[in-house]
């Protein structure tokens, strides 16, 4: 029972997805393209994860019957969020999903690294597991390569499985030019400012996608000249001091850590020399 009119562009602003994205606490999510959701192949297996799967899917795609009972509707809402989250985890590791999340990253929608020496490096969301209901979402810093908890409890309660364990690492694999430098100011590619304007405006989605494709092909696979073998040597670190003197045990640990670092750098540089 498909109601054609609800899916049309005129009603776009009141679609379930745009409502979901604009609700408070859902700032980390990006918009999953409708055709990605409508391609059942992409949803393989999710019917086992979500109760009332087909109705939840209808709700997400705004095809749900209006005459559905209210109590079912509220429980469906929970299922629809779960379903959207799980689809989202799959979507953001596709080429188009990555580029949508990249826009959000450039706007620092996921916050900035709390580590002082990361100089406000923008973060990326990541899960500790791909299984829902296990761990809340964490934030990955590409500079110190570590995980932090979201500042706000609104974000701290989002399921990490809605972002998955792979996403931030795939992003830097696909866009090696965006791997943050280990020192110096934060730089986010050429069009960091330009990305800000393109908010969720449904009517222009198609055109924007095409533009993104161009941008993706420009950045993707680039970075042949990038060499990160000795990047860690530039990383700044905090050295505790008491009246100006290093703290013995911590200094010892830090020397050991730096020796581990130097050993890796030696390994990677040797590798670099061997490959033409």
């Amino acid at each position, binding site marked *: 029972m498909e109601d054609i009119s609800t899916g049309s562009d005129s009603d776009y602003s009141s679609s379930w997805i745009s409502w979901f994205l604009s609700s408070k606490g859902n700032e980390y999510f990006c918009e999953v393209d409708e055709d990605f959701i409508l391609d059942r192949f992409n949803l393989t297996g999710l019917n086992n994860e979500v109760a009332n799967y087909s109705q939840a899917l209808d709700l997400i795609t705004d095809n749900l019957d209006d005459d559905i009972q209210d109590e079912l509707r509220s429980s469906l809402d929970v299922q629809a969020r779960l379903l959207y989250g799980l689809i989202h985890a799959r979507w953001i590791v596709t080429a188009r999903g990555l580029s949508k999340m990249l826009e959000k990253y450039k706007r620092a929608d996921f916050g900035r690294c709390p580590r*002082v020496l990361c100089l406000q490096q923008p973060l990326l969301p990541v899960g500790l597991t791909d299984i829902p209901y296990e761990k809340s979402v964490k934030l990955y810093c590409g500079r110190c390569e570590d*995980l932090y908890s979201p500042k706000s409890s609104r974000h701290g309660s989002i399921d990490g499985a809605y972002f998955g364990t792979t996403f931030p*690492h795939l992003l830097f694999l696909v866009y090696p030019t965006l791997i943050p430098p280990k020192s110096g100011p934060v730089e986010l590619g050429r069009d960091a400012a330009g990305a800000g304007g393109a908010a969720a405006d449904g009517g222009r989605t198609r055109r924007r996608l095409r533009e993104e494709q161009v941008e993706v092909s420009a950045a993707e696979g680039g*970075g042949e000249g990038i060499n*990160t073998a000795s990047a860690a040597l530039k990383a700044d670190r905090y050295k*505790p001091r008491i009246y100006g003197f290093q703290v013995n045990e911590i200094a*010892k640990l*830090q*020397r050991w*850590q730096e020796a581990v670092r130097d050993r890796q750098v030696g390994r990677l540089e040797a590798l670099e020399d061997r490959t033409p």
Partner: protein
Amino acid sequence: MGRGSASSTPTSTLTWISWFCSLPGHEYFCEVTEDFIEDDFNLTGLNTMVPFWKEAMEMVLDVEPDEDASKIPDVSIVESSAEMLYGLVHQRFILTRVGLQAMAEKYESGVFGSCPRVYCVGCNVVPCGRSDVPGLDTVKLFCPNCNDIYVPPSSRFQGVDGAFFGTTFAHLFFQTYRELSPAPFWKAPSAGGSPLSPRSTSGSSSSRGSPFVNPNPHGGQKRAAGYVYVPRIYGFKVSERAKSGPRMHWLRLRPENPSELDMVDWRGRWIDEDDEYDDDEEDDDDDRQMEDFDPVI
């Protein structure tokens, strides 16, 4: 000295110091005792850094100002002087036994918050400055588990000068309270247990088995939270050979046992490096020769 005159505060139950420490954003400050401030020795050198010194002292100590107070153009100037005075005295006070004690109470009650790093598993942090000179940087938070510093989560601390806590306090604190300081080594709880599961870092591991002992009596006596994040793509570790591969694992890494710390000399070179890492061998030979000249321990 107008100090002799009876002190009377506007709201007589609340001293200026208590009032100051109760302001939003001032949660990290502890109350400096009045006798510490009244001992001139503790204030050596501060009078050159604080304008309207006398008036600021009177304000901090709730002393009635002199009759000829009219020469001060604006109360707000004295207020900022009083804040500077209190902050600089605070920097010194929290290094004393009484001050450390007062901060320890705040630490244990979690006033300073906990480390935002996931694998520090909520280790409590202490305020610290990046400079002892006021006006350079705002207060930061030091985590004893990862030995790193963080920006306070709330913007209300962005107006608090880091010098009011100083560079030394955080570390003197953990030297003083070694039982609060995580040790520099860590072994994954269940031997052979998969490091894939972050559950292994949960607090339960510390309750199990014998009480934790660091053989270095001057070192941290608390079991560390030592798990380090390993990035994975579709379940596979990202290889270090990839350009986007891990480069910062070392920053958080701890050796499994304390003796490994001694495998690195005071300049940060491996002592007696052999087999596995043949690439560095030549360098290391030079290194060892040099080593003989240095009477290290």
